[in-house]
């Protein structure tokens, strides 16, 4: 029994894992070669096998550099252990995939709540990744854990953004602090923190306008929001989530790199994982920049958000192994 099977044989995990599988498995109908086919049909471990593996990882958007070094690791493992059976590669692939992500650290995806009072969660990212939707889902999740929540409409730029957040506020059943479109986002955040403290709210979720990371002025605006929060919170650590769309390619790395210069990112929310894209760029982000993944968005319903689980994720990447 391979490591794969051992990992994924526990029944209680199956239900949750199905979600990842339903979303991510759809790719398998497509033209992408599957890991299963590759490992089972290859007779020996040779260059063409490595080529096929490379294809699988690149097609999952894992990133060129990370894939190249990953394949390199596989090559040297094969050499060291004098392996010839392709099926035996399975364990090494999974093992190394895990170590790319865990890096021998214990990663907690839990929100670091401030025990003494208000916890702030700031959502940032490029345009159209799903920040506002993720705030709605997260607020619902946090509220169902028994906490009081509030939202701040920090996206004062995009048409309809404030209304969109207000609708989420109604669905979740929490108040939304907003100002007129075009106001300074920092002033919205300032007001919201005051208001949240006054009402003894547990968690304040802050929406921001989508911005491309190469727009210097918009990144400065974000720095200001960030400064406002840390000043108003007297330096209490708060969560900053970078929202990344699973369809994003290599640009995800640039997003993570530049956004973390403007704010200290505590984790990634990987959205739209219910499509055919695998969002592998987050592995590259973790590998190259050390930023972990905190949440995944798996659908359009308010409950379709979950804590990230690396086992489930890798299962989703190679789910066909168990069919």
């Amino acid at each position: 029994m391979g490591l794969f099977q051992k990992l994924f044989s526990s029944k209680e995990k199956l239900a949750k894992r199905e979600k990842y599988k339903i979303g991510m498995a759809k790719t398998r109908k497509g033209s992408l070669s599957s890991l299963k086919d590759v490992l089972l049909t290859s007779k020996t471990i040779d260059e063409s096998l490595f080529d096929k593996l490379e294809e699988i990882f690149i097609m999952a958007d894992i990133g060129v550099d990370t894939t190249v070094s990953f394949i390199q690791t596989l090559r040297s493992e094969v050499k060291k252990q004098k392996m010839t059976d392709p099926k035996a590669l399975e364990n090494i692939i999974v093992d190394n995939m895990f170590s790319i992500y865990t890096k021998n650290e214990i990663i907690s995806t839990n929100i670091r709540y401030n025990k003494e009072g208000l916890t702030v969660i700031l959502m940032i990212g490029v345009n159209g990744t799903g920040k506002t939707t993720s705030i709605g889902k997260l607020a619902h999740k946090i509220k169902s854990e028994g906490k009081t929540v509030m939202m701040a409409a920090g996206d004062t730029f995009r048409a309809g953004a404030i209304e969109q957040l207000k609708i989420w506020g109604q669905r979740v059943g929490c108040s939304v602090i907003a100002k007129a479109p075009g106001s300074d986002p920092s002033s919205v955040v300032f007001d919201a923190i005051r208001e949240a403290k006054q009402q003894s709210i547990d968690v304040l979720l802050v929406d921001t306008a989508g911005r491309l990371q190469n727009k210097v002025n918009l990144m400065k605006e974000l720095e200001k929001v960030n400064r406002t929060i840390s000043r108003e919170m007297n330096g209490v650590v708060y969560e900053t989530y970078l929202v990344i769309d699973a369809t994003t390619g290599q640009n995800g790395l640039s997003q993570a790199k530049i956004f973390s210069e403007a704010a200290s990112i505590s984790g990634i929310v990987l959205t739209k994982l219910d499509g055919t894209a695998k969002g592998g760029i987050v592995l590259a982000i973790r590998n190259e920049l050390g930023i972990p993944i905190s949440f995944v968005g798996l659908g359009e319903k308010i409950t379709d958000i979950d804590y990230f689980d690396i086992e489930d994720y890798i299962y989703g990447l190679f789910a066909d192994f168990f069919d």
Partner: protein
Amino acid sequence: MAFENLTSRFQMALRRLTGKARLTENDIDEMMREIRLSLLEADVNYKIVKEFTEEVKQLALGEKIMKGLNPDQQVVKVVNDELTKLMGGEAVPINLKTSGITSIMMVGLQGAGKTTTAGKLANYLRKNNQINPLLVAADIYRPAAIDQLKTVGEQLKITVYEEGDKVSPQTIVKNALKYAKENNFDTLIIDTAGRLHINETLMTELQDIKKITNADEILLTVDAMTGQDAVTVASSFHEALKVTGCILTKLDGDTRGGAALSIRKVTGVPIKFAGTGEKLSEIEVFHPERMASRILGMGDVVSLIEKATEEIDEDEALSMMEKMMSGKFNFNDLLKQMKMIKRMGAFSGILKMLPGMSQMANMDKVDDKQLVYIEAIISSMTKEERIHPELMERSSSRRNRVAEGSGRSTTEVNRLISMLEKQQKMMKQFSSMGTPNMEKMATGGLQNPASSNKRNRGKGKGGFRI
């Protein structure tokens, strides 16, 4: 003629440096590895990269190395040419009916930018194609999507047709058509909800809308940052709807946008527009040829090659140098020279690229406006004055007349005269240095860039041939 020897010696040196007249398999293999990674980094689909590099390899084999290029640059040139071809060469215009109502459907994944782009497109077509657009809010699913379109409409003063989020998109579209007919709108731009290509119910909804409106354009909106999945998304939408065009959004980011190539290659659907900013005016017709070098990501090398092969007319440059060296350099030549240099970019930048001439790069910089002024001044001179600069030097009344005629100050006229003088002097010095010195300058300039990093190697390595 001294200069002819000089040119050929430059070229000899270059050829010795590269040592090859034809591309060998080795040159190509080496470069192809780098190009392959570059394309993958740009998110071009893996399979396409593989096919493409194999095809191009065959094309490049045995290709002659152009004078002034080294094998690496030559391979990049072949690749860039082929990429441009693949991207479809010319921009494809949007399909608008001359009579009756044109229907344009905006479709795509969530967050690609359909609503914003619908507004931008309506505004663009109103301005450039004299249409009277009606925006139709058919996204009843995303919270506040209708509000967003209404706000965009208000900003642009374009009417938005909406029936709230309780009516089916099919009904909304049907009624919108009727509304358009009654109120003399000639173009419907329909904002549909973002959806996953694997959501069959929602894809059927789009097919319904297509039938109802008999859509003239179905534009797939794609985020320029999309990764490998672009192919799956585009081909699913295309299969279901027969997409007529693509709009690439968020191209103002730092993404290389390889998705554009994947979509084009797999579906054959042309990319018609590109979103290039947050403002509602920031949309432009998509230029395939510009996209090619962006995807390749070897802009430095590519632009240098372009300069080397296109911008400079060799004969023109040669006769110019001849004139300069002979010291018979007049106002006509000065104007010609400036225009020539202008075509290639900043004056100082060009000089720096010339091997061994970087110390001369601080010569008076020329900007666009100044060139216009200089042209005005020179055109105000008589033919005789232009050929014999000394006439201008000697007579202050001539200088005053020219100043008045050109609308510039006498100081500027004087400055131009002394500039010509300076150039003449410099050229005389230059030619009196003799050929051995020149050769030393040439090779000296060539050695340094050759040892610098690979991607920037093009700079200075004798990219062109004056």
